[in-house]
């Protein structure tokens, strides 16, 4: 019979929608929304009615005993699975990402893909054979090469991030002590487990789990608390950028100038010796120089090495600039490039562009070290 019960309903609703659409079209001229909507509704209902007719309502005859075993009603439910829940949560993350940040959105989409993929594979694997054990095995065989590295990477990321947050929050000396203590603790536990070989796997697993949670918890807590004062101050100072010579700051990173790109392009080393002598070593000039030449308009990097016992800074003066402030008022300011204070044995580079020739300046261009009498290198810019 082609007209089944449900198709009666669906065709009926379809016919109703069609009628409504027609009536709407006639009665409400210009109101396209209803007409179009009802037309689509009619199409959908009639399509469903056709499907219902085609599948005969999915009816299994009571007399067709051969079909009973394969009927949908006789199928047992599938087992439990995390992926439906995961999919929903991923959808939530995606939505939140849509509103807040592209990063979260991408994480949400990635999660969604991962969850749906897992869902698909586990659905397939569960029906691979009649043996659950075997099904689990094929699933793992298929998915573990993907799952385990990702899970491992995530675990590692949690550990590394937590560690780094903890140590960024602790002061340098305390950090060292904590690091040593933790190392000893790990060694101790490892030794304990090694000696007590029959240790319960669950107990060991539980301890590790608790440790991981504690580490992650401390990591989150310290991350929220912020980094130690010196680091925040150093970050504010922004020692990676040259910031003029107005203030002398304490925390400069001695290693900043060790960036490969900078160090590979040093125009001259300026060295302050222990006895307060200042000299330069410039490429192309043998030995110690008391004058250097800097090519005009070229970014040139000069490295200051402090071998004296006090913290010192290098100042490169290259004239002055006069600003017209209007109303006949002019402001004169010196053009200077400086390192921050460098401790004994430290070095720091400064990159400078000198646009004007030294001959055009009233004052000579020099490199000096404030506080050291007579320490001066002449700078020539052609």
């Amino acid at each position, binding site marked *: 019979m082609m007209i089944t019960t449900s198709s009666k309903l669906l065709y009926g609703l379809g016919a109703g929608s069609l009628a409504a659409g027609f009536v709407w079209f006639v009665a409400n001229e210009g109101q396209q929304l209803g007409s179009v909507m009802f037309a689509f509704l009619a199409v959908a209902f009639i399509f469903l009615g056709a499907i219902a007719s085609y599948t005969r309502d999915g009816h299994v005859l009571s007399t067709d005993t051969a079909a009973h075993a394969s009927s949908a009603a006789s199928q047992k439910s599938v087992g439990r699975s995390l992926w439906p829940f995961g999919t929903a949560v991923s959808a939530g993350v995606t939505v939140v990402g849509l509103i807040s940040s592209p990063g979260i959105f991408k994480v949400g989409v990635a999660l969604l893909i991962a969850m749906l993929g897992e869902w698909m594979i586990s659905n397939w694997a569960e029906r691979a054979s009649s043996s659950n054990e075997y099904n689990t095995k094929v699933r793992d065989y298929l998915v573990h090469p993907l799952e385990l590295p990702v899970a491992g990477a995530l675990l590692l990321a949690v550990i590394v991030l937590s560690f780094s947050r903890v140590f960024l929050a602790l002061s340098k000396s305390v950090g060292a002590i904590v690091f040593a203590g933790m190392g000893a603790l790990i060694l101790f536990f490892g030794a304990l487990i090694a000696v007590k070989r029959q240790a319960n796997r669950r107990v060991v697993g539980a301890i590790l789990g608790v440790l991981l949670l504690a580490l992650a918890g401390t990591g989150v807590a310290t991350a929220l608390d912020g980094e130690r004062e010196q680091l925040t101050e150093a970050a504010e100072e922004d020692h990676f950028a040259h910031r003029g010579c107005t203030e002398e700051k304490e925390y400069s990173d001695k290693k900043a100038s060790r960036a490969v790109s900078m160090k590979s392009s040093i125009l001259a080393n300026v060295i302050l010796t222990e006895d307060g002598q200042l000299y330069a070593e410039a490429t*192309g000039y043998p030995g110690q120089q008391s004058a250097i030449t800097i090519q005009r308009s070229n970014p040139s990097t000069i490295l200051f090495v402090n071998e004296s016992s006090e913290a010192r800074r290098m100042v490169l003066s290259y004239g002055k600039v006069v600003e017209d402030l209007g109303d006949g008022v002019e402001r004169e300011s010196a053009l200077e490039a400086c390192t921050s204070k460098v401790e004994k044995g430290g070095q720091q580079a400064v990159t400078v562009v000198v646009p004007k020739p030294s001959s055009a300046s009233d004052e000579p261009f020099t490199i000096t070290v404030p506080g050291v009498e007579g320490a001066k290198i002449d700078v020539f810019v052609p």
Partner: protein
Amino acid sequence: MKNPRRRFLSLAGAAAGLVAVAGCAKDAPQDTWQPAGPNAEMIDNLQRPVFLVAGIVGVIVFAAVAWVVFRYRDRGQAIPEQTHGKPAVEITLTVIPVLILIGVAIPTASTIFDLAKTDDTQMVINVTGQQWWWEYDYPAIGDNAAKYGLSQPIVTSGQLVIPENTKVLLRVTSRDVIHSYWIPKLNGKKDGVPGRVHLLRLEGSKPGIYAGQCTEFCGLSHSYMRMETIVLKRADFDAWVANQLAPYEAPAEGTLAKEGEALYIQQCSRCHQVNGLADAEGNLIVSAPEQYVVSGAAPNLTNLMTRNTFAGASWDLLTQECRDVVWKASADEFGAKYLAGVSADCLNQKDLREWLRNAPEKKPMYVDPTKLQETGGKYRGMPALGLTEDQIDALVAYLLERK
């Protein structure tokens, strides 16, 4: 000719012959086989035996290939059994090239180290490449000041002037992109890399002009980026230095050149510098490269007419006739001819005027107004200034006095 194959063969033969003959040019200014200084000679002494060895190997290989091609050409015979490996042959054919390469490597490494020596430097000159010309500055420090009378730095461009038999060390760098400095008759090439200083020895043993060309593709007008190195006898060099350091002489009042000076101050001094030129209030006019020019300063024009070229050594300031006089002068006479500079009679008016009229048309640069957006509104190279012919007359008159 009826037979296309023969026709092709004869054409190919003609082309090959042309290439071969071109290699034999006697008067090739950029010939690597005609060294004119100890550094280039070191290279020449290395390349001749290496070329000989490589040539012999090449002939042997070509002959062997030709014999194999002919001997085993397809005559319908069965393909021989494909076997792999004859250890004796393979080892022999590995060991022989290794031995040859070792033989080549020893003098090569030794030459490289010799060429990199800097401890015998007598004079240091900074060389800065930019799009598309070379700037030379002679720092007034160290031996330059003490032994060569450079009481002030000299800045010039296009032509590098060095004293004869002097170990000059170039500190090569760049203001924008990578360029490469190469005077084939004096030494090998060296890249000028922004932010870095590379060292290049230069020494000329015979007075004369030695030409070169930027050898690292550096943009639109790479082919217009040339350079010449002038080797002068010591006395001539001292005269050249003295002239470079001579104070500025303003043109006489009422002359066309005086008009040109005013025009220069108004139009050119933003980018170009003439040392000692002062404005009405007596303030020195110093170029302001940081404000207007993308790639740094424009060439210093203080002694333009002592140089024989302009615009990145791409065009001669001398007419062909006068140029030949300088280029073909004997070693003894060369210094005097060169130091004479450019006189009004010898001035290559055509090219210089074209240049002043519309520089970017002569040497392509980013001055196309539609391209300005790409450069942030800044010109690169010399713009078209829209000068009238009268103004050009005045400027030429002014520049002619820059000796």
